[in-house]
């Protein structure tokens, strides 16, 4: 996860963009999130840059079809030795279609190219979330705003980007206070994190990402000393992660699932 970027020497815009591009290491990400909570001007700038991003993938994949492939092939040196090569797989086809439907120019995050590592990423997103959650302590979540309007606003933003019918009421878990809903990115795709603070077990989170792996039922796993319950709907992958015992996480996931399936 680490990069050669030095977060201490970065301007506010650079920090924000590197954060949105998922180029910061976990500690620098947390520092950005902390600053978002403390520094109103920074937070406003973050909102502005995140909300006014351009999705480029669809537009540029249209351009690929303009390439004079046959002519270029004909000019390839020593092509006769190359033999018939398989047609280039259109990795971006699916994403391009999705972007076009979503509208190429407004809203959302910059959508990065789906890399060939995509299949692996969809399996690994839980590992990345676990990595990230490992850094959370009670203090991370303790001083966040309790203002219902702020929370409603956070939830509305997450709901809109993730295309889920989320409501404040629907996301409440009995006995475990809601702390924050925020958008992160993983591999250029939005990743929503709804954080809670369990008085007994500490930070707990529901995380959501877009996926097309197909529906699957609850499964459990253990990562970095935390328990995870994960499942998927047609369009999303979900996970609940925390230090709560597995059966308790299962109950929590069971309460949240009907809301998330919309």
């Amino acid at each position, binding site marked *: 996860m680490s*990069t*050669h*970027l*030095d977060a201490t*020497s*970065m*301007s506010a*815009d*650079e920090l*924000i*963009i*590197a954060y949105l*591009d998922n*180029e910061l290491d976990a500690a620098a990400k947390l520092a950005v999130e902390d600053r978002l909570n403390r520094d109103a001007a920074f937070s406003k700038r973050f909102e*502005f*840059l995140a909300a*006014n*991003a*351009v*999705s*480029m*993938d*669809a*537009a*540029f994949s*249209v*351009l*690929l*079809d*303009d*390439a*004079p*492939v046959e*002519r*270029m*092939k004909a*000019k*390839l*040196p*020593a*092509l006769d*030795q*190359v*033999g018939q*090569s*398989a*047609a*280039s797989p259109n990795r971006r086809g699916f994403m391009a279609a999705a972007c*076009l439907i979503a*509208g*190429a*120019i*407004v809203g959302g995050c*910059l*959508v*990065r*190219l*789906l*890399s060939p590592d995509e299949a692996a990423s969809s399996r690994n997103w839980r590992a990345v979330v676990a990595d990230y959650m490992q850094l959370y302590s009670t203090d991370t979540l303790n001083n966040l705003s309790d203002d219902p309007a702020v929370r409603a606003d956070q939830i509305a933003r997450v709901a809109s980007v993730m295309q889920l019918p989320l409501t404040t009421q629907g996301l409440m878990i009995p006995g475990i206070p809601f702390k924050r809903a925020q958008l992160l990115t993983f591999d*250029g795709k939005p990743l929503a994190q709804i954080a809670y603070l369990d008085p007994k077990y500490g930070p707990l989170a529901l995380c959501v990402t877009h996926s097309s792996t197909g529906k699957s039922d609850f499964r459990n796993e253990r990562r970095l000393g935390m328990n995870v319950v994960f499942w998927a709907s047609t369009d999303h992958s979900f996970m609940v992660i925390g230090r709560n015992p597995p059966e308790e996480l299962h109950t929590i996931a069971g309460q949240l699932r009907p809301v998330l399936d919309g």
Partner: protein
Amino acid sequence: MIADRKLHAAQQEVQSGLVDHLKRLWRYGYVLSRQRDVAEDLVQATCLRAIERAAQYTPGTRLDRWLFSILHSIWIDEVRSRRIRLGGGIVDADCALIVDGEYESETRLMANQVLKLVDGLPEAQRNAVFLAYVEGLSYKEIAEVLDIPIGTVMSRLANARARLADIIAAVKESPLRGRRD
């Protein structure tokens, strides 16, 4: 003997891999030069140099990244200095348009809006933005392809995003836009 075999493997991989990357190389050449015929020349020169220098390619690594960096250095070293005079940031209308008719007009319209935005960026920013947000390279990979420090990549991207965000925000506020019916 072993060295020979390694060289052979690298040559094989480069030669057979080139065909798969022609479209994307052309697109990169087009984004840099904004001229379709120059893009085509760049691809041809890139292929030639890639085969000549196949020994420098490490089999099993990302061939596309390696080819991008060759194309970029050709653009910088040769074509740009000798043949290309950059315009002021506006592409000819027919260069910016997506000519293929198989897409619906709204798709083409939106694509061209995005291309126009990116086209308005200074070349250094446009280059980094393309590699990051279209080709999906990490900051580190971009730094390698362009042979610049990672901090420079970051500042180019941040400046480009700030500039694009200003334009998008202004467009959103404009009452003349947004009607689709």
